[in-house]
C-alpha cells in the first residue's frame, strides 16, 4: 500500500451510487486503482460501466459515497468545493469528448483560460499560449472561434488548454469519440506525445483500440468494478 500512496492517483474502495431505492444506479462499486506518475492509463469498458464516473471522482468533479481518492497525495473527496476548484486549476486538466471549449472565445483565448484562472502575468500567458498552439499545430487558427474550426482542431485546442496550466494529471473522457479515425489518431498521438513531453500522468477513458495500444496500461471497467487489465493491441 505504501507504493500505492506514492502514486499520482490512488483510489481505494470507491463507491458511487446515483439515486436511491430500486431505481438506484451503482456506478462504482469498490474501485481500487493506482496510477504511477508519468503513466498513461486507459480505462476501457462499455457505455455505462462507470468509466466517466471514475474520471469525475478522480478529477474532483464528483464525490464518492465511500472510499478515498488521492491525487498527488491530496484527498480529493475531503476538499471543499473551492479547494476542489483549486485542485482542478493547479493539478488536474480535462479533455472532453465534446471538447468543452467556450464558443465565445477564440482558440488562443480558450487556451489561455487556465492561466487566467491562475492570474498569471499577461506576457507569460501569451508566450505559453503561443507555444502550446504551435505545439498542437494551430498557430494560424489562433484567432478563430471554435465553431470556425474542425472537430480535430477543436480537440487540439482542448488539449492545448489542458496543458496550459502545467497539470500533474490529465483526465480525458473519450477524447476521440467525436472524431473520424484519422483525426482521432493524430489526437491520440498528440496526447501520448504531450504526456511524455510534459511528464504528466494521464487517465483516459476510451473505446479506441489505438488509444489503448498507445497507453502504458489499460484497465477494464465492468459494472462499476475494475476487473483487471484489458487486452492491448
Amino acid at each position, binding site marked *: 500500500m505504501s507504493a500505492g500512496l506514492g502514486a499520482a492517483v490512488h483510489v481505494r474502495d470507491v463507491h458511487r451510487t446515483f439515486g436511491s431505492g430500486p431505481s438506484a444506479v451503482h456506478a462504482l462499486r469498490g474501485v481500487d486503482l493506482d496510477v504511477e506518475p508519468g503513466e498513461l492509463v486507459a480505462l476501457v469498458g462499455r457505455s455505462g460501466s462507470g468509466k*466517466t464516473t471514475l474520471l469525475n471522482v478522480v*478529477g474532483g468533479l464528483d464525490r464518492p459515497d465511500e472510499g478515498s481518492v488521492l491525487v498527488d497525495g491530496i484527498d480529493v473527496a475531503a476538499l471543499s468545493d473551492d479547494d476542489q476548484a*483549486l485542485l482542478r486549476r493547479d493539478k488536474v486538466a480535462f479533455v472532453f469528448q465534446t471538447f468543452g471549449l467556450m464558443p465565445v*472565445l477564440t482558440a488562443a*483565448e480558450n487556451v489561455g*483560460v487556465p492561466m*487566467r*484562472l*491562475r492570474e498569471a502575468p499577461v506576457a507569460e500567458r501569451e508566450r505559453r499560449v503561443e507555444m502550446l498552439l504551435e505545439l498542437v499545430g494551430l498557430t494560424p487558427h489562433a484567432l478563430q472561434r471554435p465553431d470556425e474550426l474542425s472537430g480535430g482542431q477543436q480537440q487540439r485546442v482542448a488539449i492545448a488548454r489542458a496543458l496550459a496550466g502545467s497539470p500533474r494529471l490529465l483526465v480525458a473522457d*473519450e477524447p476521440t469519440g467525436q472524431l473520424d479515425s484519422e483525426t482521432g489518431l493524430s489526437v491520440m498521438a498528440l496526447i501520448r506525445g504531450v504526456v511524455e513531453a510534459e511528464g504528466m500522468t494521464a487517465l483516459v477513458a476510451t473505446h479506441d483500440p489505438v488509444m489503448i495500444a498507445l497507453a502504458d496500461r489499460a484497465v477494464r471497467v465492468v459494472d462499476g468494478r475494475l476487473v483487471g487489465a484489458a487486452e492491448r493491441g
Partner: protein
Amino acid sequence: MRAAWRRARADLWPLAVTVLVVALTVGVTDAVPRLLSSRADTAVRAAVAAADPPADLVVTSMYGPGASDPTVGAGDTRAGVDDAAQGIDSFLPPSLQPVLGPPIADATGTDLTLSTPGLPTGGVLWMSYLWAGQEPSVRWLAGSAPGQPGPDGAVQLGLSSEVAGVLGIGAGDTFQAMKADRTFVPVLVTGVFDATDATDRVWTARPEILRPRVVGQRNAPTTVVGGLLSAASLPAARAALEPDGVTRTFRFPVEPQALDYAGSGALATQVAALEASPVLVLAPGPGARVTSRLDLVLTQVGARVAATWSQATVVLAGLAWGTGLVLLVAADLLARRRSAALRTVRARGASLPGIAAGAGAEAAVVVGVGAAVGLTLGQLAAPGALSWPWVVVVAVGVVAPPAFATVTAARSDARRVPTDRHRRRLAQRVRSVRRLSIEAALLVLAAAALVALRRRGVVSISGPADLALAAAPVLVAAAGALLLWRAVPVLLRGALRAARRSRKAAPLLAVARAGATGAVLPFVALVVVTTLVALCGALASTARAGQAEGSWDTVGADVVVRTTLPDASLQDVADRLADADGVDAVAIGRVQDRSELFDVRGVDAVRVLAVDPGSYGTLLARTPFGASPAFALLSDASAPAAAGAAPGALPALVPEPLLGTRPSLRWGNVMIELEPVGQVPALPAQQADGAPAGPTIVVDRAALTAVVQALVAARAERTGSARVGTEQPEVGPDTVWAVGPDAPATADAAASAVRGNVLARAQWLTDRRADPLAGGLLTLLGLVAALCAGYATIIVVLAAAASAPGRATSLATARVLGLRHRATTRVAAGELLPSILVAAVGGVLLGTVLVGALVAPLALRLVTGQAADPGVVLPWWTVVPVGLVGAAVLVVVTVESSARRRERLGQVLRVR
C-alpha cells in the same frame, strides 16, 4: 391533449408570466376608458358648479319706451316679467331645457342717486322687482308691501331692515332719488321687511336688496342699495324711469347634474348660437341679449377632458405596445425552451401549420385566461360596457407563440449554407440590407409620428386613425432602442479589449458572453418599457410641479381676496392682514382684465394691474416670481402724478414690444396716455377664472386715480356735466394679495366683512390635485409607471432565462477548469448587466427627452392649470428602473448560482 398539458406543465412559469402580464394590461386598458369617461362627466359638472361668475344663461331686454301706465298694476308686470320668463323658458331649445333650472327674473331700474339721513354723502339706489315662480317671500316688520302709486305719484318701495338701517329711514318715509338727467323720482317706503329665507335663490338676482354694498375709493366710497318693488308698484317705477330705465333680466341657472361630457360640445354650440341670435328665445322688448359663460366653461373643461383623454391614450398605447413586446419576449423564451422538442417533431414529419396550430391553441388558452382575469378586474374597478384597446394585446399574445414556434421548428429544415464564399457574402449582405431597411423604416415612422404629434398636438387624437400618433412615444423608444443596440457592440468591443489585457478570466468570460448572447428583442422591449416608466414618472412629476406653479400663476400670493366690483372696504382687509402675525407682505390693487390699449399697431386687450408698486414688488419678492427693480422704477416715475399734478401721461410697466411707444389706455370713459418706463416683470399669468391673462400693463394705482380724476374734472369743465352714480371710472381696489403662513386664515376672517371671494393658494392646489381629471391622470401615470417597471423586471428574467442554458454550460466548463463558484456569480452578472443597463439607462434618457418633446403637444398645461406649458421636472425615481433591473439581474444570477451548486459538474463531460 395530454402531451400539450405535459408541455405546458414543463413551461409553467413562462406561461404564468404571460397570464399575469395579459391580465394586468387588459384590466387597465379595459377599465381606464370607462373611468376616464366617468371622470369627464364629473369634471364637466364640477367645472359648471364651480364657475365664478356662474355659468347661468341670462336673457336681458329693455321694457321699451312709452308702453306703460303707472296705474295698470300687477297685470302689466305679470305679462312683462312673469309670463315673459315662462315664455322664454318654454321656447328654449330642447337640448337646453333639461340642463337649465326654472328662471329667476328681475326688472331693475337704472342707477338713482339718493341722499338720506343715514347716508348724507349719497348713495346709489336700484329698484327691483324679483320673481322666481312667485315674488320673494318676506316678513314685513313695519308697514306693508308696496302697491300702486298714491295721489302723490311716488313710486312705492319696500326696504330690507338692513338697507333701511343704513339709509336711516323707515316705513312711511319718502325721499327723492335723482336720475342721470338730474330729474327726481319721488319714492315712498311702504314697509320694512326681512327675507323669510335669505338663502332663497331669488335674492341672488339682486343681493343689494338685502345687504348694501360699498364700492369706490376709500376716501370717497359709494354705497349701493336695492329696494324691492312689487308687481303692483313696478309699473309706476317703469313710468318714472322711462324711456329706457328698466331692464328685465331672466336668469336660467344651470343644473350641473344634468350635464355630461358627451353632450357638452353640442350644448356649448347651442349656447353660442343663442348668444349670437338672441331672437331665438323670443325675449320680449327691444335690446334683447343672451349672455352666458356656459359655452366658455364647457369649452374650457372640454379642452381639459380632451387633453386628459389624449394623455391617457398615449400612456395606454404605450402600455399596450410595451405589453406586446413582453409577450414577444415570453414567446421567444418558450420557443427556445422547446426548440429541441420542436425540431424533433418537425424531423418526425409534423407540418409547420400543425406546429403553429398546436402552439396557437395553447396560446389562446393562456391568453384567454389572462384576458378573462383582466376583464374581471376591469369590471370590478369600473363596471360598464367593455372597451376594446386590450384586443391588440390579446392578438399579440395569441399570435406570437405559434409564430416563434414555427420559426424555431423551421430552422430544423436543412437549409444548407452556400459553400461558395461569394454566395455566402451575398447572403450576408442581403440579411444586412434587410435589417437596415427595417431599422430605417422604423426610424422614419417614429420621426414622422413624433413630428405629427408635435404639430397636430392634443386635438388630433380623436379616433382610431390617430393610434399612430398615440404610439409615437413607443415608436421613438423602439427606434432609439435600435440605435442603442447598434452602440452596444461598440461598447462591448472596448470592454473586451480591456478584458483581454487583464490577467483574470472572469472579465473576459463575462464580456465575451455578453457580446455573444445579447438579443435584440428583449433589448428593445426593455428600452421601451423603461422609456415608458421615465415618461410616465416625468409627466406625473411635471404635472404636480406644474400644478404648484399654476397655483402661483392663478393666486399670485398665498392668498388673494377679490370682490366682484371695486370695493373700498378692501383697504380694511389689507390693513388687517398687514397688522396680523404670520403675514409677511400685503398688497392691494385693482385688476382690470380685457382693457383696451391703443398703439400704433391697433387695439390690444390687456390686463391692467393698478397697484402700489412698492408693496406689490415687496410681495412678489416673497413668491417664486421674485424681486424686480422695475417696481422701483415705476414708483419713482409715478410719484409726481400720484401727488396730484396736472393730467398727463401715466407711467407704466409694459410688455417689451411696447417699450419706446406712447400707447393709450381706455379706462371707463376716459383715455389715458401711457408713458412706458420699463418692461413688465414676471407676474401671475392667469385671470381669476384660469384663463390666460395675456399682456399686462402695471401702473401705480394712486397715479392712475389722480390722472383719472384730473381727466374727468377736465372733461366736466369742458362739457358742464357732473358725475352721477357709479358712472365715474372706478379706480377702487378689487384685489388684496398676501403672503405668509397665516395669511389664508387671516384673510378668511377679514374678508367676511366685505363678502370678498377668498382664494388660498394651498386650497387651490388641493382642489386642483383632487380634480377628477388631473387626479385620475396622475393615478394612471403612476399605475402605468409601476406596471412598466414590473414588466422591465419580467423582461430581464425572461431574457436571462433564454440565455441561461448557454451560460450554464459556459460557467460549468469554467468551473471544471478551476473557476471558483463565487466567481461564477460575478461572471454571470457581468454577462447580463451590460446590455440590460444600457437598455435601462437608454430608456430612462429617451423617456426624459420625450417628456420635453411631449409636454406641449399633450397640453399638460390644461392639467396643471398654467397659462404656459410647464417646465419639465425629472424626479429622482425616474432612475428606479435602472436600479430595479440591476437588482433583478443580481437576483437572477444568485438563483442561478444556487441552482449551479446542485449541478453535477461531471455532466459537462458527457455527450449532449
